[in-house]
Structures are given as C-alpha cells and as structure tokens.
C-alpha cells in the first residue's frame, strides 16, 4: 500500500512537471472551476431540507429529489418509509460537519444523532453514527447522490452496529455452580438496521469448546438485551456441553475466554457483512 501511494504521487508529480506542450486540455476544461463557501452552504442547505422532510415523514419530497439512477434507490426509499411508520417524532441532529467540495460536487462529513420513539410502545431510542453525504449539483440545485458511512435516513441501508459486553474480566470464584446464573454480565446490541424487529441473536463460544446462541429482545427499536436475565453463565468441574442453553465454564481449566459474536449484515461504509466480537476473560 505504501509503495502504491509513493508510486501514485511520483507519477502525478512527474506528470505535472512535464513540458507545457503536453498540457493540451480540451476546450471545455480550460476554465478552472472552483467551489467556494457559497457552494458549500447551498449544498448543506439542500441536505438540511432533506433532513427536515425526513423528520416530517415527507418521503415523496425526498424521492422527487433523488436521481433514479442512484444505486440502491429502492432499498433507500423502502427503508425511509419503514422508518416513517415505525419511528415517531424523529429528530436528526447533525454536528461536527466537514465539507470537501469540488466542481459540481460537495461531500459533507458529519456525525449524527437520531432520536425517536418506537411506534408500538413509544419507547425513546437513540442511534448515532457518522456519515458522508455526497451532494451533486444538478440544473435545479444540489441533490443528494448517496450516503456512505452510517446511513441515518434509512433502516437496512447500513449502520454499523455496536456490541457491548461488560465486564471484560470475571473472577472464576464469582461464578455460581451450574445451573446458576451470573447477574453481573451486561450484554447490549444496538443495530439500527434491525429497527422494528422483535429480537436478534448473537453467538457465544468459549475457548473450552462451549457454543451457545443467545436471543436478545428489543427494548426499543434497534436496541437489544438478553431475553433471559440474568445470563445463564455458571461454573462446573466438567467440560461444557455445547448448545444446551447454558454458558458453562470448567473452573478446573481456567483461564478461559468467552467470545461474543454478532454478524452485522449491512454495516454501512461500503463494508461487506462484518463480524463484531467482544471477549470476556474468566480467570
């Protein structure tokens, strides 16, 4: 990679210092085009307009301003419609914006927080992320061409999930004997792409050979915690039995490592399905 970077820079710098005669640009490229702050401001205003329409649930207004050739057009629209029906009182707060602009293109990087209430229980929810909004200048103004990174508009269009498992170290002496439980283990999965689903699953496996599937229940749209609490984590003097619904630790063979794994089907940022893992050490 580093060699490639050096090569790329060297090639370009060599090209830039070539003889002027070589620099014969087509006629329509002769006038340099530069974006100014007014362009950036207009692009940001167009993005804010889309955000206000999204908060108001006016998906038709957003659709009218999308290019039909946008890759993932229908996934984007269906996700927004699903959000409008499932998430009420949506408020999208953009902050820490950074703008890169070129001729007829503006790229707005920003962090966001999306607050909402679930439609069924009216439970409040909060999603966070960071996006790059690609804005293209069209004849009738700036248009949203794409959203990369975490997509704040559309469930299922890709936001990186977060998996939290606490604590990361458990003394073996604190484990109850099987079939006991361990109330101190906190597990939370937040995946905005699953907003509306009642449950999600994660996989847990241990260095001693145990393997279990934990079902998590939605507390609010996209936020999941273990259905069974306290988590059935216990110790015994035998090797663990996979898939028996209990996370067993052979306390004669510690230290052991528990690994919790969740596959985010669409983590955004052009990333293919990603594996999220958290580890807990038992000693």
């Amino acid at each position, binding site marked *: 990679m580093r060699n490639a970077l050096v090569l790329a820079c060297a090639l370009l710098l060599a090209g830039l210092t070539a003889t002027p005669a070589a620099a014969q640009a087509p006629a329509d490229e002769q006038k340099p085009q530069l974006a100014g702050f007014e362009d950036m401001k207009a692009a940001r205003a167009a993005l804010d307009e889309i955000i206000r329409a999204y908060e108001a649930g006016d998906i038709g207004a957003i659709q009218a301003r999308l290019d039909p050739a946008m890759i993932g057009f229908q996934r984007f629209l269906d996700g927004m419609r699903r959000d409008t029906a499932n998430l009420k009182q949506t408020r999208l707060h953009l902050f820490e914006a950074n703008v890169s602009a070129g001729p007829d293109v503006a790229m707005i990087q920003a962090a966001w927080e999306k607050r909402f209430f679930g439609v069924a229980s009216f439970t409040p929810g909060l999603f966070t992320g960071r996006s790059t909004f690609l804005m293209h200048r069209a004849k009738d103004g700036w248009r949203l061409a794409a959203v990369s990174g975490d997509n704040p508009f559309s469930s299922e269009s890709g936001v990186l999930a977060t998996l939290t498992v606490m604590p990361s170290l458990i003394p073996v002496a604190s484990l109850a004997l099987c079939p006991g439980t361990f109330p101190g283990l906190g597990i939370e999965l937040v995946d905005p792409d699953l907003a509306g689903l009642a449950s999600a*699953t994660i996989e847990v496996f241990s260095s001693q*050979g145990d393997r279990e599937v934990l079902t998590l229940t939605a507390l609010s749209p996209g936020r999941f915690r273990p259905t069974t609490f306290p988590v059935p984590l216990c110790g015994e003097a035998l090797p663990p039995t996979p898939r028996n619904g209990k996370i067993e630790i052979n306390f004669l063979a510690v230290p052991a490592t528990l690994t919790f794994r969740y596959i985010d089907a669409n983590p955004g940022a052009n990333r293919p399905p990603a594996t999220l*893992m958290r580890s807990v050490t038992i000693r």
Partner: protein
Amino acid sequence: MNLGSRKARVVAWPAWCGPALPFALLALAGSPAGAAEGLQDNATVLAQFAQASGGPAPQLVAGEDGATKIEWHGGATVDFYSRSASGGATLTPYSGGHYHRIGMQSDLRGTAPEGDVSWMQFALTQSDDPSAILLGNSQINTLSAGRAGLGYRVAFGDVAVNHSSLGANMPLRGLLAQRYFGQTLVSASAGVIAESWEALADQGRRRMFLKNAYALKAETPFGQNLQAYATVQGYREDGDSVGANALALVPSSGNTATAGLNWREGRYFLQAEGGLSRYGEKGLDGHRDRALIVDGGWQGDKLGLRLGHHDLGRYYASLSGLAGAGIRESYANASWQTTSWMSLTGDVRRSENQMAAPPIPPPTPTIPPTPVTPYTPFVGKTEAANLRAQFTFADVPGLGLGLTVGESHGKSSGGGSNRNANQGASLSYMRPAWNASLGYQNSTLKNSLAAGSDSRSDTWMASYGRNWSDATDIAPASWMLNATASGSFQRQHLENGTTSTLNTLNLVVMGERSAWGRLSAILGGSRGHDATGGALRQHWYQLDAGRALGQRGGIRLYLRGMSSFQDRSAIAYRDKTAGVQLSYAF
C-alpha cells in the same frame, strides 16, 4: 474584500503550500478585531498576513492589463447563548449552560495572468457547546489549498475525489492531482480517510479506523461522443489507529480496478462501468467480487426515457460512496410532458438486496472446533412501481394538482415478505398576495418479520399564506410581511388494533423593513396520543430578529424553546435558548 479591484500583480508571494499558511489564516480569522481592521486597505491586510505567516508579504503592483487578481473573502460569526434543557441525552441533544460558538471562514484566491487560480480555503468552528462539538471544542470544517489552470489541478487538504461510481468517490485528507496529457486526463489521489482533522491528529477522538487510500484514473476521448476511462484504487485500515476495545471490528483492506465509458450522441446517452475487487479482513479469508452498472436513455423534447441495471456483489469493496454493495437492480424511468397541462413521471424497478437483515431464528451453529459459524447470506427481493402526475390549469392560473402513487412488494430468502404502498394528492393555488394548499397522503406498511409494527397512516395537510408589502410595479418593496399558517393531521392504525394520532398547528410570521431589519416568529403546538393511549402534548416557539451593522456586519437576537410531553415524566424533555449573534463578512 476584493483586492483584485486594485488590478494588482503579484511580484513576490509566500510559499502557498508552506506549513505556516493554515496557521496564518487561522490567526487572522481568529481575531475579530483583526478582521475588522482588514477592511482598511490592501497594505494593512497583507502586512497582517505576513506577520501571521512569518514570511514576506505579497507585493501588489498595479497592472495595466489587470492581469493578476487576488481575492480574499471571509467572515466570522460569534454567538453567545444561554440554554436551559432537561430530559437527558436519550431525549435531547442539548444540555443547559452558558455557551459560545465562533465560526470563521476564509477563502483566499489568486488568479495569475494566464488564468491559473491558486486558492486556500479554511473554515473553523470553536465552541464549548457539546451539542455542536461532542469531543473537544474546535472543529476544522474545511481546509483546502491548491492550484488549477489550463489542463491541470492540484489540491491539498480536504479533497473531493470524484473518479467514478464504482471506483473512488469520497472525501480524502491528502493530495489530489490531475493533468491532461494531450486529450487524456490522468487523476491521482492519495491520503487518509478519517472522520475529521481532529480525529486524524488525536486518537482519542477516533471512532473508526484510519483508512490509508489511493486512487488513480485515466480518461481519454474516442471521437466526439465517447469517453473511456480506467481506475485503480485501494485502501487499508490501520488496526492500531484506535484504542484497544474501542471497536469490535476487524480492520480490513480492499483493492479495486474498474473500466467504464460515457457515450452521448444526439438524444441518446449511455454510461457503463465494470469493476473487480478484492476484500479482506485481518485474520480472515479474503473475498473477490465484481460489480457492473449500466445506465442509458433517450431524451426527447417532451419525453425522456431512462433504463439501467446495477449489479454489485456483496463483497465488492470500493472507495466510492455511490457504490452500495450487495445490490442488484434494474429500472425503467420515463418523464412525459403529455400535454401543456399534464406531465407524468413513471418508474418501475426490480431490486435485490443481498445485505438484508438476517433471518430469525439464526442459521444453525456448527459444532466446535470450527471457530465461527459461517455467514449465511440473507437476500430480499423487491418489485416496485411509482407514478407521479402533475396538472396545471390554463383557465385558473396558479392552480396546480399533484398525484402520486407507489407500491413495492418484497420477499426474503428467509420466507418473509413485506409491502409498502403509498398514495398522495396535493392541490395548491398561488396568487401574488396569498397562497393555499391542501394535501393528503396515505401509506400502508406490512412486514412479516416485524408484524408488530404493521400499520396504515393517513395524513392531511393544509396551509394558507398571505403577503403584504408596499411594492409597486415600478418600485421595489421597502417593507414586507408574510404570514403562513399550516396544519397536519395524522392517524396511524396499527395492525394490533391500536391507533396513534398527532395534530399539529404552526404559525410563521416574517417581516422585513429595509431601514430597520428583519423579524421572524414561529409559534406551534401539537396534540395527540400514542399507540399506548398516552397523551402527546408539545409546543414550541422561536423569535429571531436581526439587522445590519454597517455594510458588512450584522447582529441577531434569538429566543427559541420547545417543550415536549411534560405531563409524562418518563419521556418529558424541553429546551430553551436565548442568544445574540454578531457577524462580519468581507
């Protein structure tokens, strides 16, 4: 400020790309007093510039031909405000306290006799308000410098790489260089993809891996109508760039090569690009994948047709924000001005989402010692159609009618199905002194994987606006007043038999008098109940007054507040802000 109005020629110029320049501009922009003094004359400004940069000042020599022009535009705003807020972080982004916010921007440009333009753009926000900047108290909003001229462009800092849909299309902190060799354009970029300049400098502010990236593109025309191009790009995430346990992700890398063409002849056009990529996660098996997009069409005087097909593999790894992976879709779109009073836009498409949510229950785990369960792809297929009609009436100028209807049906590989249907109508009437509109929308959502949220929504919207001013046919207005009242009434019926409602009213009044300034006021409220039967009560207000101070300055006073669900302690939140803003632009 337009130094170029002096028609000056630059004889000596400090190093444009020197490291002192950003700090020099920052120092200049950071002093409101300095900015005010900057209006005095060119010599003062350039002396300040030289003092801040530590180099010799650019000398301005009057040129008879007006060849070289230096322009410096910028501005600063300073806000002081107090806010009271309650509700907690889950309900509101705001916290109470006394805050300030300073925004500065500077756009410095020099145009050489041959037309080459050099520039340096910088914008910064400094604030102690955590809702504006979560970590730290300053944020570089834009930092860019470069030079562009006949057949070349070089840019440093924040660069917008816009090579192709499947190749590279993203912001980069680094270098962009483009040059024509004959008719062939070569473009190259290299740098780091980071969340911000602050995250690039400080590991404590990173929430994602730093991504080292490069991108190359060569494009050449073949005849008058065809352009062909090829791109190569790659990236590698730096696994050590974030603290231990900050991310549950594995760092990845990707390399992509694409080739494409743009063709246009008469009324026909075609754009196509294909790409191959290799993606890998540290410690895991790599994946090769491919992508293809084809978009074409025909544009007549009254009819426009567009057809396209996109097929991007699940593991297609590019540097383009446009290239959403795991998509296969085909579409046809038509816009038709059927008569002078009616236009139609229709769209049909079939799409396949290979990155849909996983099925419930999950795939069966494998037996140890296999380290992890293999990922089972979950695919959603959707067919959709949309139609929009717009009518105008020659007999009733100002009257317009819009109708929309759309539907999509989806099926998933896990046996699930979903359906979205929506219809809408809007009637609007616009006169010089007033306008009115009435709209209705209906949508139905069904999803077998989330049946608890299946619902049907009906929304009515109405608005009435009135304008007053002293404008005449020959004289512009010296004052104006605008008032708009709007309301929306929404009912959502959930499949489980419950109903939620929300009725909203909003009044906006705006006035402006050239000698005084401008004033706007917003007052609104909503009433309803959620699906559990709990009452929903909100109200909000905003008062904003501003006036110019001299030719370039301004002052603004604002007061705004929102109060939500105060009779329900579990979800109650409110905020109230009062502040003053001073601004200066040059």
